[in-house]
């Protein structure tokens, strides 16, 4: 219940500034533009499928998730409101998780704004909704993992731009690390590790309609580790 209070506050605070609306609008517009315009993939593929729509999600999240999460702690640290926040009757862990749930909900709203795409495809052909549901679930979890990382990074700086850049770089690494597996002279264990750590690789099966519990477990795992790290960073004042 306490978590929900913090999450609600964070969620509504986000839409108190114009940035919230701009980020959400930008996300939906970018997602649609990449799907309908880039390479004319959708119309030339000529299938009632959102496969290519979700194929862009890992990279989009790498850009948008840091933008959503950059202010979570950086702004509080910059303005000094974090000290007041600490005096509230919540533990640091609750604050971290609550704020994370708030930004996750913001992302869910942004993702909800892309629902026009499946509705359009359904109107144009016989869309199989199973893969769409699986891909939306996968996107939500992948974004959750990305947001948790970005929340943690936001707690390490007082500058939102730095937090965004840092977050985007880390998420890009998490999305491209699978390329290591294709490199020559990379030992097998390292190749396998790189594939297992890659966020987009875990999303592949879900983007085609298969929900893989191990991938969901991976995303939850990343969230847990990032949120624990976030809590620890805030607990030890020296990392601020």
């Amino acid at each position, binding site marked *: 219940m306490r978590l929900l209070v913090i999450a609600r506050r964070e969620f509504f605070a986000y*839409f108190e500034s*114009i940035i919230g*609306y*701009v980020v*959400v*609008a*930008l996300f*939906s*517009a970018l997602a*649609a*533009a990449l*799907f*309908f*315009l880039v390479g004319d993939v959708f*119309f*030339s*593929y*000529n*299938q*009632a*499928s959102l*496969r290519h729509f979700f194929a862009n999600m890992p990279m989009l999240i790498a850009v948008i998730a840091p933008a959503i999460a950059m202010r979570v702690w950086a702004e509080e640290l910059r303005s000094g409101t974090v000290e007041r926040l600490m005096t509230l009757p919540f533990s640091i862990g609750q604050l971290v998780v609550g704020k994370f749930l708030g930004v996750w909900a913001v992302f869910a709203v942004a993702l909800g*704004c892309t629902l*026009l*795409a499946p509705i*359009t*495809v359904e*109107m*144009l*052909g*016989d*869309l*199989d909704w*199973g*893969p769409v*549901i*699986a891909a939306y679930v996968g996107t939500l979890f992948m974004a959750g993992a990305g947001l948790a990382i970005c929340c943690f990074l936001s707690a390490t700086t007082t500058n939102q731009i730095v937090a965004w850049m840092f977050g985007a770089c880390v998420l890009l690494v998490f999305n491209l690390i699978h390329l290591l597996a294709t490199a020559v002279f990379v030992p097998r264990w390292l190749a396998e590790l790189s594939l297992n750590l890659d966020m987009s690789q875990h999303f*592949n*099966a879900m983007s*085609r*309609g*298969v*929900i*893989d*519990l*191990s991938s*969901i*477990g991976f995303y*939850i*795992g*990343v969230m*847990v*580790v990032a949120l*624990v*790290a976030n809590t*620890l960073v805030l*607990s*030890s004042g*020296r*990392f601020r």
Partner: protein
Amino acid sequence: MTHSAQTLRGFALKMLLSTVLVVVLVALLNTFYVRYDLTAAKQYSLSSSTQSLIARLDDRLQVKLYFNQDIRGHEYLLPERLLLLDLLSEIEHLGGDLISVETVDPTADLVASRDAEHVGITAVQLEGQDVGSLSIDLLYQGLELRYQDSSEVIPFVRADEFEFAFSVRLSALIAGEKPTVGLMSNESLLPPQMPGIPRQIPEDRVFEQLRNALGERYTVRDLSTTQQAELDFDGLSALIVARPHQFPAKYLESIKDFLAAGNSVLLLYDSEFVEPNSLQQVAVVTGLESWLNEIGVNVSKRLVYDTRSITIQAGSQQIETPSGMQTVPLQAPYGFGVFAENDSLNTEHQITTGLGSVAFFWAHAIDTTALSNKLRATDLVTSSDQAWLLPADSQLAMSTSNIRELQIKAFASGEPQRYPLVSLVSGLFGDGDETGRLVVCGDSDLFHNLTLQSPENPNREFASNLIDWLSNDSDLITLRSRGRRHRPLHDFAAAYIDSHGGFTDDENENRQLSKDAVAKAHRQQRLISAANIFMPMLLMLGAGARHFIARKRKARLVK
């Protein structure tokens, strides 16, 4: 130890602990293969037989996909190719460390090109789509499986048959040998192979193409009834009795015992031989009539004439053209060439569910209404409901006059009806206590060399399906129709053409109509794209603007 060092140590310890916990959780989830396939057709759910085959791997399986990436001009192939890659990815995921998948492009990689040639994977030639040119594009879509010292190849793999083709080959690789099917006929045996001399195939071996088609996955054992020797039924997974003629009683007893023991038999039955070139008929006494009647199966002596039939060249005619008189072939439907498709194929049964069509020549109707209590019949293929039975001694000539004559005869012979052409009889045969399966096919020409010589002939797939099912590989066969369902988008251009009354005889008008239709379709596509990009964005920004205006108003009121 200072306070800060203690904090740092605690931080590191907690991080390490949480990371270890998460890694253990993810590793545990990875060991349990829990995946939920939400696609409507369960496209990515591998069959239990494939899963159990992969579980039986005790060595590394290397899968090499020969796949050219550049298929510009043939984008219609993309959905199938994507599905193929997805299925391979599912198999790789299921196999874990034991399966590795490598994709190579023989059009861009010389080594891959040589490898493809070496293993027998060749490119399919596609006609180029460039207007005004005759370019031919190459399409590689072959698969090579390597396991221990053996390898199997699928020269051209299609997504809809992928899992079946893959599993059958994997099964062969693991087992080290193919299952055996017996082919019983009164054809002469092959002469022994002499080193350095090509083997001559005797002319009477009219089921050689069937043997070749089945030979890809089965060892076909020739059981010639012309020999006096005892026939070896040991180890047979199924038996084909092809065009029996004066069937010796002792072999009939063997078949009865085979069925009673719970085995499977495919009977390709004909009451006459038709010589394909002269169309001369020779009456056949199968020697199986009384046994079939005894179990309640009656194969009509009369021939099925169907309005849904194969189109043949029925002569030619001279026509006057601007460049002079020309001879053009005359095409006509040949009623004795029954073309079974759509409602003629039993969509409930695994053998016929994924089939597109089956073509028959001079087929006979099968009646199973008098079947004994212990047996049950399922019609697999029927004629259309516009079919008649004509006397067996009808003229078979493929001339326009005879075709017309046959049509008149058929229409005058009474009300049309649907006739079963292939029926499955299953149950307890004789005194047996195991369920045997007998498929009676009222035509043997559907598997004749002349019919099966084209690799694309759908009867080949029917033959494979029949034997796969009869050989108890029925769990694999359900996977064949995978991915056949396409979900095309609304065709704006076609709708535009329809709304303008369709194409006419005027070529210029048609060209203009096509041009307008394409332009209209592009406009519609641009409109859809713009709506999807700008509508949610404007709505969100509108909501933001509304919120800020309301806040400003409220602030003013408070002031």
